[in-house]
């Protein structure tokens, strides 16, 4: 089985205007840099994007926002992106803000074939408005739905042609649950190894979830807040 494609441009083949895609990463940590650049170049527009954050003004998802390629964002935190905040407050961008743990679980559930589930997060807040609620063990919960997308784009440390993936340190974050939730999941990896070289005990995402994989290039891996010991 060989799921390897040449590069990011080839990996996003078939993606169309108006589709929904997921993008792994937390802040700038573990984001699929190559595919983001290919999406910017593609000029695709009217996209709905599911991503925990929105990058910063001039890197990551911020690049797509700047070019107004995204019509709707589904995220939990926008704090570090001024352009995102501006588009949100001006109403140019449709934004669905959802609690981070609920977002992660909605992705996991979507990929696991679980249509809906109950969580306590957001009950009594505007997140809960219009949602079904129910009491369990004396505590109120909200009904939340599994999430899937036309494309999921994830970044892993190592991968093989069968689509098996290993993430590194905290660059795992949303990549693992998103990898499960794409109708087509694209994985870009820092190191593409021959089949059989990854230790099966260490694989985070089994290849069954991945449809396309490629060796990424020129990773910048920008640090958002470099903080060192005094």
């Amino acid at each position, binding site marked *: 089985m060989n799921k390897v494609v040449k590069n990011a441009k080839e990996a996003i083949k078939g993606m169309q205007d108006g589709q929904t895609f997921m993008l792994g990463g937390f802040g700038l940590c573990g984001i699929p840099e190559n595919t983001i650049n290919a999406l910017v170049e593609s000029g695709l527009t009217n996209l709905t994007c599911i991503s925990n954050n929105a990058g910063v003004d001039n890197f990551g998802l911020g690049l797509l926002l700047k070019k107004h390629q995204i019509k709707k964002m589904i995220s*939990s935190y926008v704090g570090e992106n001024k352009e995102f905040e501006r588009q949100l407050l001006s109403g140019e961008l449709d934004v669905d803000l959802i609690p*981070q*743990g609920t977002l992660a679980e909605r992705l996991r559930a979507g990929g696991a074939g679980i249509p809906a589930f109950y969580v306590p997060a957001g009950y009594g*807040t505007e997140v809960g408005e219009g949602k079904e609620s129910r009491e369990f063990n004396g505590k109120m919960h909200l009904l939340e739905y599994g999430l899937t997308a036309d494309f999921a784009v994830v970044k892993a440390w190592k991968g093989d042609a069968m689509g098996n993936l290993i993430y*590194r340190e*905290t660059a*795992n974050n949303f990549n693992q649950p998103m990898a499960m939730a794409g109708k087509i999941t694209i994985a870009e990896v820092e190191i593409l190894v021959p089949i059989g070289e990854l230790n099966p005990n260490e694989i985070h995402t089994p290849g069954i979830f991945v449809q396309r994989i490629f060796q990424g290039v020129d990773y910048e891996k920008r640090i958002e807040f470099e903080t060192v010991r005094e």
Partner: protein
Amino acid sequence: MSLDKIGIAKRIAQELKDGYYVNLGIGIPTLVANFVPENIEVVLQSENGLLGIGPFPEKGNADPDLINAGKQTVTTIPGSSFFDSSLSFAMIRGGHVDLTVLGAFEVSDKGDISSWKIPGKMVKGMGGAMDLVAAAKNIIVATTHTDRHGQPKLKTSCDLPLTGVNCVKKIVSDLAVIEVTDKGFKLLERAPGVSVEEILEKTGAPVIVEGDIPEMKL
């Protein structure tokens, strides 16, 4: 005299108990890690997927793949583990985290908290705060007693959009330690040199004061 950020962090560190798993929010809460008493062991959880946060890295050793939830570069302690975001919130939602410390715009005397949005002005997003406050067994808010304009942040009800309801157990501010009880705010301690009167004056809700209120020991 009112406490500075370091003082607030030091006082919150006294709430830590041996064996605790603790999630520290962005800002003042992050500073609490610097003042963990030496005779106890706590493990810090970062909701982006790390259990066992270590100190900030030495200069030149920052690793872009290794950050905390505030997106600052960190290190790990021996015995740490990495995991994805859904597993991370399984720890939080499942009640496995013993204590959550976070900041707030407002806290009500019912334990409601606002921390993520100022309509028309600022939207940061809730991040993991809603999940944390809805599930944590024990929630301490670290905050200044009043906002930049001198208005009370501790009130009878929150005016800003809520992060969670009926969840905050304790508040450590620059002026006081306040417990949120069934009957409202209860003053437990005051910052060194700060009078009970000043605390009452700067709190936007009734405060229960029983007997002599001791000064914080820092």
